[in-house]
């Protein structure tokens, strides 16, 4: 086997780090204001979608440490308690990874269904954690809305991920 040249290695490195860079960008994008009525209250969990997608299709390119850092980044940006999003993303990653065999070769509809099922306990967990941290039960409606928007928006965002997966990451 021939040793790859420096440019080849750089090329490979850029391609392979694309998923995590993309997730980090999505973390930043989720705080950008758009003037759609009610949008801010129900920003879909872009990073959750990305985490699930890459955990199912390219888990080797999604190291837990990077996920942790992205979670912390999003916590700081959105002002949620530090660590909450990080734990959620890590658990989502682990759950998706454990069901990977059942999801990876199936038609997209089933993968989507997998996300719908797996994201539910994660959302409930985040809601419970937030309630514990606030010392009171917080209203479940915003979490429910966010869950719905996230799982309903998944196909649209996943379409972009598929393109990036196919042409950038390879």
């Amino acid at each position, binding site marked *: 086997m021939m040793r790859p040249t420096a440019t080849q290695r750089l090329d490979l490195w850029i391609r392979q780090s694309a998923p995590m860079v993309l997730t980090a960008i999505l973390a930043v994008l989720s705080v950008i204001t758009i003037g759609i009525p009610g949008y801010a209250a129900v920003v879909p969990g872009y990073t959750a979608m990305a985490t699930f997608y890459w955990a199912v299709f390219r888990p080797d390119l999604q190291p837990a*440490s990077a996920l942790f850092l992205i979670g912390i980044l999003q916590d700081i940006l*959105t002002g949620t308690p*530090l660590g909450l999003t990080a734990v959620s993303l*890590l658990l989502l990653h682990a759950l998706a990874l454990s069901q990977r065999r059942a999801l990876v070769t199936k038609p997209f509809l089933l993968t989507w269904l997998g996300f719908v099922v797996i994201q539910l306990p994660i959302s409930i967990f985040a809601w419970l954690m937030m309630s514990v941290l*606030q010392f009171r039960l917080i209203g479940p409606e915003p979490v429910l809305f966010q869950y719905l928007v996230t799982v309903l928006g998944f196909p649209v965002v996943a379409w972009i991920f598929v393109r990036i997966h196919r042409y950038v990451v390879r």
Partner: protein
Amino acid sequence: MAKRPGSFSSVAQPVRSLWSRFAFATLIAAAFALMLLGKADVLLVERARIVVLDTLAPVIEVASRPAEAVTDVLNNIRDLRYLRAENARLTIENDRLDRWQHVARRLEAENRALRALTNFVPPRDIDFASARVIADGGGAFVRSVMITAGRRHGVTLGNAAVSGEGLVGGIVEVGEEYSRVLLITDLNSQIPVVVERTRDPAVLAGDNTRAPRLVYLPQNAQVVPGDRVVTSGHGGVFPAGLAVGMVTAITDGAIRVTPFVDWERLEYVRLLRTGTEGVVQPESANLPPFSVMGQETTTRTRGILP
């Protein structure tokens, strides 16, 4: 992914898998530790947040420009559709405001005369800074926005942020150039207010919905839908009299107030630099942000300031 060549992988694989499990558990534990640390209100966590916020805010500011352009286009299209109706509405409103202006001028004159009679000590005038909203801390758990003003612009913790319509929230994190405003709808927001008509004191407690609740009202309070709610100035953090919202729903469980602020079009906020002790910066004390009439009041404030 390219498979690593050589026989090393057969040995390394189990070790690596063990290591990755350990690393995973460590990261989860670290995240939980951070949550506890943040809950314990350690200064370190707060500092770290602010440093990261200050570094990342310019990136967000740049990224928010295209989003803003999109919003502008959307708004323009919407505005075009209602241009005629809007024009008619504004003409009527202008008529009405002219009458109000007349009333306000008369009242102001009367007020001034009465104050002179009674040696009334007015609340001190407030200095302010304007800032742009660059990020909306969305998500299900927090209602906050990031703005382009920080310590360098004289912003301090607890300063009130207002828009043209009313109270937006209070400053909870101050960076060098950027800070974060906790909106009045947030779970952690509790603001001393009074019902304008009856002067009943209460606390406006956010719960992450669009309409915060009015709590700790006196037993005999007579609040009806349509009552305006303004800040009371109790606690001395926010100035008194800032418009907050209107009572819109009274059920047996809760009295809900719909804020005046148009959350979807929140682009700029004014920060009232009261400081925690309510000190006025004298050089701009002649620009009271909440006077009824623009120009006339400047003479008044100059005369009364100690």
